[in-house]
């Protein structure tokens, strides 16, 4: 269960958000520039809020003035909007990046690459991938990490309808199997995420309201 009450300001931009998730999947929507990415980055630990607190499953990630857990120790993986595949590694090395013992390829790996249609791309380098393929590899890499909290920023960008359905189905299956809490920020294909009951919308003046 994630609880967030933060403010974060940049020159010309201010985000004030309060949210509390009671289910293990949340859809975060809002106009472009409403602060979805900033919110996810704060939860992941990549940005430090100016004020407030962030807690997950009764442990604080951030508490103003006293605590700021490093991103690597939050067990919260963020799949960002931009292509963040490691260019010096192959697709399979990217996907297995967080697996400590590479010799023991987990069953999840084969299952995920098959469902995301990546089984023919394993030995390619990111430079050879299309935008949609890169998104799917990034998603697979995030899933293989088995985070407690999975943060997805616009995961459907560059995917056609069929692939969007496959991704949606895979995410639903994944959170049920691994009891992972998922937060998806997107302003497209929200209709495909009908398995998510908890919907939050960042609206001007950038406040999260239960939808």
């Amino acid at each position, binding site marked *: 269960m994630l609880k967030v009450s933060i403010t974060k300001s940049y020159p010309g931009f201010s985000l004030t958000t309060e949210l509390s998730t009671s289910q293990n999947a949340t859809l975060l929507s809002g106009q472009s520039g409403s602060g979805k990415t900033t919110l996810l980055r704060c939860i*992941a630990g*990549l940005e430090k809020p100016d004020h407030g607190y962030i807690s997950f499953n009764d442990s604080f990630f951030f508490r103003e003035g006293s605590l700021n857990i490093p*991103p690597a120790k939050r067990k919260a993986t*963020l799949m960002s909007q931009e292509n*963040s595949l*490691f260019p010096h590694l192959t697709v399979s090395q990217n996907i297995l*990046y*967080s697996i400590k013992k590479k010799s023991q390829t987990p069953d999840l790996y084969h299952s995920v690459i098959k469902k995301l249609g990546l089984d023919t791309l394993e030995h390619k380098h990111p430079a050879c991938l299309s935008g949609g393929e890169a998104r799917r590899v990034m998603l697979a890499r*995030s899933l293989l990490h088995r985070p407690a909290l999975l943060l997805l920023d616009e995961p459907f960008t560059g995917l056609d309808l069929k692939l969007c359905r496959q991704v949606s189905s895979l995410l639903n299956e994944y959170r049920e199997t691994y009891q992972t809490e998922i937060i998806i920020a997107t302003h497209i294909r929200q209709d495909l995420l009908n398995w998510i009951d908890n919907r939050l919308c960042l609206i001007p003046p950038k406040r999260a309201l239960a939808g």
Partner: protein
Amino acid sequence: MSVNWLKVTFIFLFTILLILVLSAYLSLFSLIQKSSLFSIITSTEFYRPLLFSLFSSTAATLLGGLFAIPSAYILSRYTFPGKDLAEGILYLPVLVPPLVSGLALLVLFSSPAGHWLAAQGIRFIFTPAGAVMAQFFIATPYALRTIKVSFNKVEQSLEEAATTLGDSPARVFTRITLPLAYKGILSGLLLAWARALGEFGATIMLAGTIARYSETMPVAIYLRFSTGEMETAVTMAAMMMLAALVILIVTRHFLTAD
């Protein structure tokens, strides 16, 4: 048909520059006597400063890398008050004449702090360690600049992704940043090595001109030239030029290789 005068002018100036550089260095070889070449390059007067130069420039480069890599990372990734000033100070040895840098080092190591270091057994004035220090001081900014550019080219989003996949900052640096910046790091170190190998002004001020002790190749060339041993000086200079050429080719290889 109209003549592209801009192109013609540029080609003319390019050709003049190329001919000037090439003819200057080739002229060195014209003075080498084949009959005495073997005896010169097998003499201790030749290979002792050469070996010492190779050793001191390599030591200076390794030491330079030890400081330049973290410093370049700090300049590339962090913002702090006075950063521009700090960066400018680090590049001073490139802008200031090497003789002045050498004099500054001499004064520094003659100070009470230098005397304290000497009491601990760390002596730089008129010693081989002084040659390493002078080369390190002059060459490190060249590595710093190149390495900083290579770190700038590594997108921070990749480091952030590795962080949220559970990597500590040290693991992100070794698994992501270093592998992606290694070509620039190698180029920077090669450039620093070439600069250290050719260092003269600061070395002569700090390490002196003590034959068979702290004598580097450029110092040896200067000493032979000043004592009228032109043939030896020219042979040494030609050998140094060949070394610089090899470094250039290797650097180009690293810069252009996929």
